């Protein structure tokens, strides 16, 4: 891993998006067993996966993984913990007053 430069990988993946009453979720799985590390960036290629109401979409796509460089990885390891508040229902959306 380089200190400054980022490596880009194209990886086959399966996306699963459920927009149903019984479950609302969206996940990406890398089919070749690729593993994501702190600070890496993942983008699924192609048009947005838009599941209509009541729909479950499971689709094969290609994902671009932009690997973080050593500095970014270190920075994410040091600071990522402070994003925990998102798990709380009362965390902030964009603006404080609505």
């Amino acid at each position: 891993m380089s200190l400054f430069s980022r490596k880009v990988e194209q990886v086959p993946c399966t996306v699963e998006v459920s927009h149903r009453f019984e479950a609302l979720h969206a996940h990406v799985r890398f089919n070749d067993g690729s593993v994501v590390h702190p600070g890496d960036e993942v983008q699924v290629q192609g048009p947005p996966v838009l599941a209509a109401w009541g729909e479950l979409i499971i689709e094969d796509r290609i994902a671009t993984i932009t690997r973080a460089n050593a500095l970014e990885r270190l920075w994410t390891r040091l600071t990522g913990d402070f994003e925990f508040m998102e798990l709380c229902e009362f965390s902030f959306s964009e603006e404080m007053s609505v």
Partner: protein
Amino acid sequence: MNMHATTHDELHAEMADKFDTDAMAQESTLLNPRFYTTDFDELDRIDVTPVREEWDKLIGQMKADPNKGHFKKNADWDKVDWDGMEPKLKREFIDFLVSSCTAEFSGCVLYKEMKRRGKNPDICELFNYMARDEARHAGFINDALREAGVAVNLGFLTKAKKYTYFRPKFIYYATYLSEKIGYARYITIYRHLEQHPEQRFHPIFKWFKEWCNDEFSHGEAFALLMRTDPKLTESFANKLWIRFFLTAVYSTMYVRDHARPAFHEALGVDIDWYDQEVFRKTSEIAKQVFPMELDIDHPRWMPNLKRMERAFRKIEAGEKQGGIAGRIAKFGAGAQAAWAFVSLYTIPVKKSTPPASVRLEPAY
């Protein structure tokens, strides 16, 4: 404190039409959860042997899934007069639903990732059930949003997402607290509305009891996990972290709730009373694992919460104002918020000794 990114109105109108026509969406909300990694080897090394008996019982309960049939709309789901709802209340209530949905959704993403990357069968099984519950809750809230004409958009996958990092112990502290405080928040509203049914302006509150029992049992699982390694709650540094998490979560909740005055007024809830009540319940429950509780009756507690809330309002005003003057105002208010946080953090805690048996049942 973190501002997570739930962005309203991000999607073009034509996409929204295609996306959810039968809900007649006038507005669309892009869910934008974070993605997480952690130290999976450390997570795999957890050994639940010291709490095996209680662990198996709890996992058995989750597997039996007693709430499976609960999240269905039945005759109790009254018709909601969205058009007749006072606009400010409607805005705040929708914001409440969106942030609840995002929190459930983020929990689902986090738990699913742990389940997928982990190799320890005990841990994978737990995270699998929790991801299931969170997706179910998110689906239920999403349905309430649809009725209000708000479409949730899951198109975020095709946008670039950076993976952030949580240390395993931070996952325990943060998720334990978020699940337990979620329980305390929902049950307090539920019990209040039992006494004042005329103030229940939306049927979703009737579902809060079983819902928060899920939150409660998720919290129990993390309590057991923390018990597998005494250092997590007993070392000097970790005690400071626990204090930090408690202070951060409590003060964020205070600031956030005060930003929704119409919502609480419609419920007939005094926000200061409600928040103190939620802190009290959460602290009482958290004594099961944390060797301390925050002293929320200390003379410095409430004044500094209020100070922090005022500082956040100023930060927001500075942001709206923009320019150099706005930035200076923001910076000053940021310093005030930080000082208020330090004042809260340094209030002496009330020490306690966690009981020998960690497990609790929902009792409020």
